[in-house]
């Protein structure tokens, strides 16, 4: 037999037989973290999720994911104060993603294209009464109908929409948009009975044979302040004023209007007064700009329209054609204190915008409900102390905004659904927050936020045309792509590329990736180089 050197006696083998995964002490794991925008959205939208579809230009898929949580995107894209953007991680890089602008674009596009939603579950045979057709009632009705329940709304007013119609002025929320989004909810099979005021909730439930009730009466009563006033002085409350401005016969105000208060309602009252012909509109507020409850953007828009502000002022009395104001100063605790200095402002009409309260008479006869801070108390699941009666929106103690109201409606619908099945709803567990410091922002391209076109101020102050314009498809795509996809894989292939051991498997478009733990040595490069922080290292269990 011929003698061969050892080095040529063995068959060539592949290193694939060498499972280097055994070297590992930590393993990478794919995770989904909670993006701050989602965390901040009061309606619980999966913003990062619908932006993902919008990034690809698939606006219908984006919209469909959006309306799983919020039936009113065209409305919210216009009026929501977008706490999502306040929370957005991109703000630390350049500017927050213009989430509301993309939301509005999707909402408008859906209306143009006539997208509809369908019930997701077959009819349950259960009947639910919703009282009030503001955003909270509409949201609850929509979600309940999608879950297969038969829903009837009793609404006291002659048109649906609550404060979205009778509070928020047209120049911020055109009524055709509101009507169309309400219409889509109605077409799901929701019955809205207009002009039906409920005076006793328990009786309405019993008479109608309803299995459960959701009440969202809002806060319809203007808070009053005692002001000494001449008999001839013209004083209106903001809620009635805005409501009448919405009607066919708006009130005549005279030339000079003084609005008293520092909230968004005050801003809207002053801006509406301008549009109704007042040449001077002055807002009198007792504290300073940084302390006013109105949203900064609303103040900016009001100032741009020529509204003037009288800071650190209270109205002392109202005379015929004028108001006397006292100048204030802030004490150490930030509370306004009188100075004894007075001024006179011309005023043909005074509008009081000092906040709203809820009329709770419809629940007065329910023995087991309780009231806190003028609101009806509810549990985590939005149920009042009375079994089967749920409440939400402005009438429960919480922030009073359209989106909070929508979120309450959604949560209540889920709880009612559980209640009808004899269960109690539990809120699903939340992922850990996708904090900015978890991102590898080096990878994101630099890009400024797209600015929405604005009506020129001159035109704006005289008409009720919408002030802020929308994005076109190009801009919306651009804006969506500014999203960093915080905490959720967006298929950039980085992990697949950067592994020195080829231990990442690509599962195909839309299916993400998997680790091949036979070869992964646990170096952690994928974790460090994932732009959005969707991978973590976990100790290896031996």
């Amino acid at each position, binding site marked *: 037999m011929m003698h061969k050197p050892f080095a040529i006696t063995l068959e060539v083998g592949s*290193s694939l037989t060498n499972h280097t995964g055994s070297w590992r002490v930590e393993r990478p794991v794919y995770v989904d973290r909670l993006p701050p925008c989602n965390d901040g959205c009061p309606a619980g939208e999966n913003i990062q999720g619908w932006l993902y579809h919008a990034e690809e230009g698939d606006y219908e898929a984006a919209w469909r994911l959006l309306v799983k949580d919020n039936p009113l995107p065209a409305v919210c894209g216009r009026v929501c104060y977008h706490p999502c953007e306040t929370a957005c991680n991109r703000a630390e890089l350049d500017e927050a993603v213009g989430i509301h602008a993309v939301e509005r674009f999707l909402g408008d596009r859906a209306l143009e294209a006539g997208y509809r939603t369908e019930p997701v579950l077959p009819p349950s045979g259960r009947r639910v009464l919703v009282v009030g057709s503001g955003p909270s009632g509409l949201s609850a009705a929509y979600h309940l109908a999608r879950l297969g329940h038969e829903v009837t709304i009793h609404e006291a007013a002659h048109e649906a929409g609550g404060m979205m119609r009778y509070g928020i002025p047209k120049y911020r929320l055109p009524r055709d948009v509101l009507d169309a989004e309400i219409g889509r909810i109605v077409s799901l099979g929701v019955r809205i009975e207009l002009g039906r005021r409920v005076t006793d909730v328990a009786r309405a439930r019993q008479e109608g044979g309803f299995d459960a009730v959701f009440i969202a009466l809002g806060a319809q009563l203007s808070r009053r302040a005692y002001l000494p006033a001449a008999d001839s002085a013209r004083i209106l409350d903001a809620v009635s004023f805005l409501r009448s401005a919405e009607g066919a016969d708006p009130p005549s105000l005279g030339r000079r209007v003084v609005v008293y208060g520092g909230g968004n309602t005050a801003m809207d009252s002053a801006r509406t007064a301008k549009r109704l012909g007042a040449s001077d509109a002055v807002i009198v507020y007792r504290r300073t700009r940084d302390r006013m409850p109105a949203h900064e953007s609303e103040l900016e828009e009001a100032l741009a329209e020529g509204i003037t502000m009288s800071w650190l002022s209270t109205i002392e009395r109202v005379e015929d054609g004028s108001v006397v104001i006292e100048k204030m100063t802030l004490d150490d605790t930030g509370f306004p204190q009188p100075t004894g200095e007075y001024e006179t402002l011309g005023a043909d009409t005074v509008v009081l915008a000092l906040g709203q309260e809820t009329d709770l008479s419809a629940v007065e006869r329910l023995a087991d409900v309780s009231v806190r801070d003028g609101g009806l108390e509810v549990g985590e699941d939005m149920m009042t102390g009375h079994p089967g009666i749920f409440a939400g929106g402005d009438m429960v103690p919480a922030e009073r905004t359209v989106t909070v109201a929508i979120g309450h409606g959604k949560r209540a619908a889920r709880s009612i659904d559980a209640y009808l099945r004899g269960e109690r709803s539990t809120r699903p567990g939340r992922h850990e927050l996708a904090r900015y410091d978890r991102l590898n922002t*080096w990878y994101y391209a630099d890009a400024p936020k797209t600015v929405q076109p604005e009506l020129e101020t001159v035109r704006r102050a005289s008409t009720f045309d919408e002030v802020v314009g929308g994005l076109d498809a190009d801009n919306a795509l651009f804006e969506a792509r500014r999203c960093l996809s915080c905490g959720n894989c*967006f298929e950039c292939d980085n992990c697949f590329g950067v592994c*020195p051991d080829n231990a990442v498997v690509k599962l195909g478009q839309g299916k993400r990736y998997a680790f091949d733990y036979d070869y992964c040595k646990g170096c952690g490069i994928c974790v460090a180089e994932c732009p959005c922080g969707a991978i973590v290292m976990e100790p290896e269990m031996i």
Partner: protein
Amino acid sequence: MGHEPVKFYQVGSFAVGNRLLDRDERTVQSDSGRSNSLTSGHRACQGCGEALGARYALDAAMRAAAGRLVAANATGCLEVFSTPYPETSWQIPWLHSLFGNAPAVATGMAAALKAKGRTDVRVVAQAGDGGTVDIGFGALSGMFERNDDVLFICYDNEAYMNTGVQRSGATPPAARTATTEAIGDEPGNVFGQGKNVPMLAVAHEIPYVATASVAELHDLERKVERAMGLRGARYIHILVPCPLGWQAASCDTVRLARLAAETGLFPLFEAEHGRVVDVRPIRKRVPVEDYLRPQGRYKHLFGEHGRPDLVAAIQEIADGNIERFGLLAEAVEAGAR
């Protein structure tokens, strides 16, 4: 105002793939069908930049050569961790030369293929920095001078890693190695020595020279593709951080390569026939300290008995590169996409 089409792709071409880009704009590495020239099961350390860089470069070369590629490989980590007898991690025809003669062996392979009329088969040679700038340099210079049809790739981890981290002509000033210990007043490797082989390659006026890094994949692949589109002697010098020799965390390999470029310490450029024709601008300039601190081989420069004077001297080297190669120009344009 005219209509401006959207030109924004979230992570654009900074990431490996990106589903928003057209398929042909994504990298070879983003493709599940990439050749994985260096496959799994190799014995490189956790987070080895050399293993990563080799797969990046050879997969790109494989695509450019339509799969007809052979490689000569000098001794060094890349060879040792990939081929413990009788196993191999190579999924291309691959030949182990000696430590110092990979350029000459590759020259021979190219000559043989030419003699057989198989010029469709392309030749690469690869080596570490020791095999390239020190012991292999004579053979390399000859290969350049004869303009042999070989793409030579140097994987620069800035020392002789395979034998226990000894200094090479590519070891940077102040770095601690087993032969340049930072003891007492000794600052680690000396200043003012060493070889800049990319520039020496440029001086040979060969058809193509480029520097690249494992942190800039699109750039690296484009350079390999460009090199493969040419004939004659071509040289690519890739910075490949070594967690072991640099005493750095294994997860920081790509980050350190990025910082090397973003500080200006490792300029990314291309040269053709003796002229620098393009540079990759710095995107977000950072001080050298950000690059040095995470590396244990520089730890004697910091802390109570630190050497701010040496950090400043290293900063001067970075600033000099930025000026010499114009690394800040067009930075704005690079950010646009």
